[in-house]
């Protein structure tokens, strides 16, 4: 299973763009890259998922280079409510219909300041 490495913590200010990079050197061909957000006393929540290139939704963008050995979650104009732990995971459902379980790394603790 691919191991992920992220910064332990990051600080930002309201209105700034935040980029969190995750390395996953051993990612397999069939692995998706998925980011989850977790607030205190809640279960993780899906943010965004991609396989390659760039994916954008109403919450974030995900940039994945051609070699897929890393990915960057981009949060535009963060607010105080974006303070949370962000997890990068590889695995999940396979193109073949199988499933590679999700293993959580340490995550990145993002603190947004006024």
């Amino acid at each position, binding site marked *: 299973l691919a191991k992920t490495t992220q910064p332990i913590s990051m600080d930002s200010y309201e209105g700034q763009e935040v980029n969190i990079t995750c390395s996953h050197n051993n990612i397999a061909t069939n692995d*998706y890259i*998925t980011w989850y957000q977790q607030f205190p*006393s*809640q*279960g*993780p*929540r*899906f943010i965004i*998922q991609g396989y390659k290139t760039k994916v954008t939704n109403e919450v974030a963008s995900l940039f994945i280079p051609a070699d897929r050995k890393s990915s960057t979650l981009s949060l535009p104009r963060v607010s105080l409510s974006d303070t949370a732990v962000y*997890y990068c995971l590889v695995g*999940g*459902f396979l193109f073949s219909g199988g*499933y590679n*379980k*999700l*293993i*959580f*790394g*340490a*995550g990145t603790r993002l603190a947004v300041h006024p």
Partner: protein
Amino acid sequence: SAVISQKPSRDICQRGTSLTIQCQVDSQVTMMFWYRQQPGQSLTLIATANQGSEATYESGFVIDKFPISRPNLTFSTLTVSNMSPEDSSIYLCSVGVRGKYNEQFFGPGTRLTVL
């Protein structure tokens, strides 16, 4: 999507006792997972519980300590047996849903304190 509820939301137990945590999903799902999250830590996968088969446990977790039931496609239980203070943690269940985003949905967790 899937909406997941867990019972109890929290409990305080005495060492040596057992607690069964329930996980209910609002739709039928094949894949369910149980995680543990110790205070300030990341999530650790305990086991995968697919309906119709025995649960598959991760390294460091055994069936005698964490027996799991999966009687149907919407329900599962995790029992924490013969508890010790080291079992104090948040226990979360999740389900895997194959769809546009192939994501896992997580329950709110059960906060367990063992005295």
